[in-house]
């Protein structure tokens, strides 16, 4: 009897992520710089433990290598946690949801005269008495929640998108931002620690042997290597930690800072900030740990005779993924056909909804800028859809 291979949902997820350990690990496809990070950290620490620690443990204190080990383990844990976890990817809309949104947009736009570009798809919401614009993502077919953004490298919408970090080989978003921050903070401490004790080691040796400091340093090539690595790392990592501390105190993301969303007099003030540094820090660092909504390791049920839809892997996933409740209610799921089957931004080349061959490379690496209608001079002035979120 041939054992049936179970198909898990991560195998059918759209986007440009790579998965390991049967869906437990989720990263970007390009991992070269991540391996470099790993090599630099482990290599430098290995040299430190091999050449500095024996001397320092004897001549200074046994606590020196112990603290170094603890720091190193914490840095590695934070790095792996940041790199391997789901940053807060928003799953793409299923066909029914996509067509429902299309119908809402059509209803709001009314009839567009032939030859004119339809207005840009923007939804205005009021958050803490500020008007925030939600953009429509043509790839994921959703109006992005506030603070979410589409990463063109990973081809996913990420909630509370900060940036895509090649050094950790993953996006930094809502779910892994605190691990990223703790990684930069602990790496700064580790770098300063190793740098300091390298200097101390050389100084002790020069004092012990009565030689000039530089001569003593040259007799310890490993120390020289470590000092060089730490010196250059210090400037970047400590600077980055300081920058993110500043962002956290204001409850801003790197993406918002770069785009200047909340800066300037004419702009909206940050509606997410509590106007209190302590509260902002607590929300970002001590807030709830959000679970992943991707369900990477869920098992996909094989349904007989289900042929994938013409474009979407997601549709095939829909046809295959059935919850027990739904199986009880119906055996054949009827799906409403989308109004615009191959929907795409009016000015962009039709992006294939399938996972292959989709390239949203734009000049802005971190966000798919679906502002095609606004890019060139429009024939009709673009009108903003004022779909006010109101509930009663």
């Amino acid at each position: 009897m041939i054992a049936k291979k179970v198909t898990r949902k991560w195998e059918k997820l759209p986007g440009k992520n790579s998965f390991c350990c049967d869906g437990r690990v989720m990263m970007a496809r390009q991992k070269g710089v991540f391996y470099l990070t790993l090599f630099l950290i482990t290599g430098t620490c290995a040299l430190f433990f091999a050449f500095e620690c024996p001397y320092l443990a004897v001549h200074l204190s046994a606590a020196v290598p112990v603290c170094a080990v603890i720091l190193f383990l914490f840095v590695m844990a934070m790095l792996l946690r940041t790199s391997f976890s789901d940053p807060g990817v928003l799953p793409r809309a299923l066909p029914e949801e996509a067509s429902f949104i299309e119908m809402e947009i059509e209803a709001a736009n009314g009839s567009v005269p032939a030859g004119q570009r339809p207005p840009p798809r923007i939804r205005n919401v009021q958050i803490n008495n500020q008007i925030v614009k939600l953009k429509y993502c043509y790839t994921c077919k959703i109006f992005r929640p506030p603070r979410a953004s589409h990463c063109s490298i990973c081809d996913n919408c990420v909630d509370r998108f900060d940036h895509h970090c090649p050094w950790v080989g993953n996006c930094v978003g809502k779910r892994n931002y605190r691990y990223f921050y703790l990684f930069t903070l602990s790496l700064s401490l580790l770098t300063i620690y190793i740098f300091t004790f390298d200097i101390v080691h050389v100084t002790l040796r020069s004092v012990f042997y009565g030689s000039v400091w530089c001569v003593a340093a040259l007799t310890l090539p490993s120390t020289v290597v470590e000092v060089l690595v730490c010196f250059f790392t210090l400037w970047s990592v400590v600077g980055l930690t300081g920058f993110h501390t500043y962002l956290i105190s204001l409850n801003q993301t790197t993406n918002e800072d770069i785009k200047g969303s909340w800066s300037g007099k004419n702009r909206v003030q940050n509606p997410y900030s509590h106007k209190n540094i302590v509260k902002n820090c607590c929300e970002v660092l001590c807030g709830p740990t959000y679970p992943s909504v991707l369900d990477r390791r869920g098992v996909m049920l094989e349904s007989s005779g289900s042929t994938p839809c013409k474009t979407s892997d997601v549709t095939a996933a829909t046809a295959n993924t059935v919850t027990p409740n739904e199986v009880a209610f119906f055996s054949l799921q009827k799906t409403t056909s989308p109004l615009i089957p191959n929907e795409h931004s009016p000015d962009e080349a039709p992006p294939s909804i399938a996972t292959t061959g989709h390239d949203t490379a734009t000049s802005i690496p971190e966000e798919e800028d679906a502002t095609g209608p606004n890019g060139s001079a429009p024939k009709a002035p673009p009108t903003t859809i004022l779909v006010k979120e109101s509930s009663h």
Partner: protein
Amino acid sequence: MVKPLVTAASTLASAFLPLSLCRCPTGKDDFSTGIDPPPSLGNMATEFHNLQDLRHTATLATKVFIQRDYRDGTVCKFQTKFPEELDNRIERALFEDTIKTLNNYYAEAEKISGQSYLEGCLACASAYIIFLCMETRYEKVLRKISMYIQEQNEKIYAPRGLLITDPVERGMRVIEISIFDDRISSGSSSSGSSVSSGSAR
């Protein structure tokens, strides 16, 4: 796996099946296949037959999506606005009650309180390794939400031909409510499949 299916199916079946199915088919608009067994011998067969009819006749008519309410920020909260499509399917109060309860659950999960600080600090001190064996507070609340939705489906929504999908399966973006055609009164087993295919258009 089979038991929840049967439970859910039987719940729906009991909601949709009128009691008249238990008696001998007499009227011309009753289920008539020409092969109805006498009730004394074929109650089980009739019920099974009707469950299968149900599966063919409970066709999906449309889906309604309840959007997120962002007025209070990025916390997970859904709009309580009553959709028009549910107008003659369910009472407003029941619907709003469901949504408000869900919103309360999510608020409880995302509350930044002493407990969340403690959980965060302990986890940080253990380099977050503790999360490999321990369930977070959010995950516990999500499980409660999932059970609540299942209960609501069984008690309130299924009898009205509706089905709520847990928002976590839709990326916490929408609450998807599936609306089914109520075909029990007019469907018949021999034309069950043609009826369902007819209603699909």
